[in-house]
């Protein structure tokens, strides 16, 4: 297991407002990490800084690459398809991904399309929110990346499908890659997490192993997470 993601002294402000301050973080390869925090805590911003979609001050290194263009080749992020018009057919989006991402894995993509029951002949505008979320998950996981950033990926998905996807995450994640998932359904993803990172007060408030929380604190991940907001356990 090696160091995959390293963030040093990261600061980010937007519209004269400080969003993240003095963020230091190291994540190893081969992990599934839960990125937790309240709405507006800066989880999405942190992911956008890692992908290079936002520009902060500090150093971010992914798989040894710190230049934005190189970093992008190691990161697969759940982007919300805002660049495609409603009339774009799903099949065309897959073709586009295949053409522009050298690490796009066609076999994996086909398996994901079958598993998530995605109809490639549909237009984007004809898809429900849940179907669109499934499409985003399929596109993100179709790449053979070192780091997957899933930003609230299960938002509009029904509970049955959500559980099905969460339970199959291990199947889709390449062994050496790391997956960072930000989600509000903490209980549902808790069972697959190796670590949790909590963003609070504009910085990384807590970075712990999931087993450590269960054994040392004798509580579930959701319970532990909630305790941070009740003025409870705030070590690390």
């Amino acid at each position, binding site marked *: 297991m090696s160091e995959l993601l390293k963030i040093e002294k990261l600061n980010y402000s*937007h*519209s*004269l407002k400080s969003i993240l301050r003095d963020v230091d973080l190291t994540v190893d390869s081969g992990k599934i990490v839960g990125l937790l925090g309240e709405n507006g805590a800066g989880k*999405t*911003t942190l992911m*956008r800084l890692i*992908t*290079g*979609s*936002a*520009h902060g001050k500090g150093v971010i290194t992914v798989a040894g690459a710190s230049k*934005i*263009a*190189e970093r*992008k*080749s190691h*990161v697969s*992020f759940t*982007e*919300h*398809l*805002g*660049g*495609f018009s409603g009339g774009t057919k799903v099949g*065309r989006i897959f073709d*586009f991904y295949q*053409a*522009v*991402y*050298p690490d796009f894995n066609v076999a994996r993509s086909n398996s994901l399309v079958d598993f998530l029951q995605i109809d490639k002949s549909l237009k984007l505008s004809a898809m429900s929110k849940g179907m669109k979320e499934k499409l985003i998950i399929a596109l993100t996981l179709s790449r053979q990346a070192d780091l997957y950033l899933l930003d609230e990926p299960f938002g509009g998905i029904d509970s049955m499908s959500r559980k099905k996807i969460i339970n199959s995450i291990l199947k889709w994640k390449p062994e050496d890659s790391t997956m960072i998932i930000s989600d509000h359904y903490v209980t549902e993803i808790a069972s697959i997490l190796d670590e949790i990172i909590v963003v609070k007060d504009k910085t990384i408030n807590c970075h712990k192993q999931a087993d450590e929380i269960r054994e040392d604190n004798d509580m579930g991940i959701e319970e532990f997470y909630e305790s941070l907001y009740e003025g409870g356990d705030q070590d690390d």
Partner: protein
Amino acid sequence: MTSFGNLFKSFFKSRFRDMNFLLMINLIAIVVSIIVTAFQGGMSNSVPLAVTLGWSPIATLIAFIRLSITQELTYTRDSYRLIPISDTKFYLANLAASFVSYLYVVVAEAVFYLISAIPNWSEYMDTLNTMSMINGRASFDAPNAIMGSLAIFCLMIAIIVLAWTTINLIHLASRSASNFLPSTGRKIMNVVIYVVVIWLVLRVVGFAMDQLRNSVNMLINANYTANFALNIVVFLVVAAVEAAVSIYLMNNWVETISE
């Protein structure tokens, strides 16, 4: 990393589809207009070209606006900006894809002109000969006219490139500035930008129209060629400087729209 060629092809593919749709609508409009004119009893040999000349500026203007919107959207959406490629190659692939798509529309329109001119070809040649004689030549000088047309074409291309690099620069500069301004400041800045853009557009259009007016002389007089070449070079140098500043902004300040 993604290669320039792959990115260009992907950008071009979707824009090519867009432009084909636009040309199809253009063609339908031309055919319908000709049929309507025929039913109204106003049909003559000159009607096809007149109708084509009427619809063509609208089609090319819509193509320009459509490509400009697509281009600007590409700079600020994660769907494109997450692609692992340097900002320089990204910028150039985006600009080149729009440029080639527009060129395709212009060539298609030229083909429409030629086809619609066929029914009245001899009369148009007579008109050109008369124009040449008025300017002191024995007859219409085809090689000179081709050179002149090529020069106008090059000037038009240079104006298009400059227009896009200017739009890019204004858009990317305003996106960069918005990182540092509170929401009220952003609104004021947008108003200032709109005023500057309108002023700039009027100036550029005025200058371009002057050049195009002069270009009519080039069809019959080769002396204008040198001035034209100089104007094209100046346009392209300004475009290159604007492109360099835009790439710098993309590299350091421009953020995608958070969805």
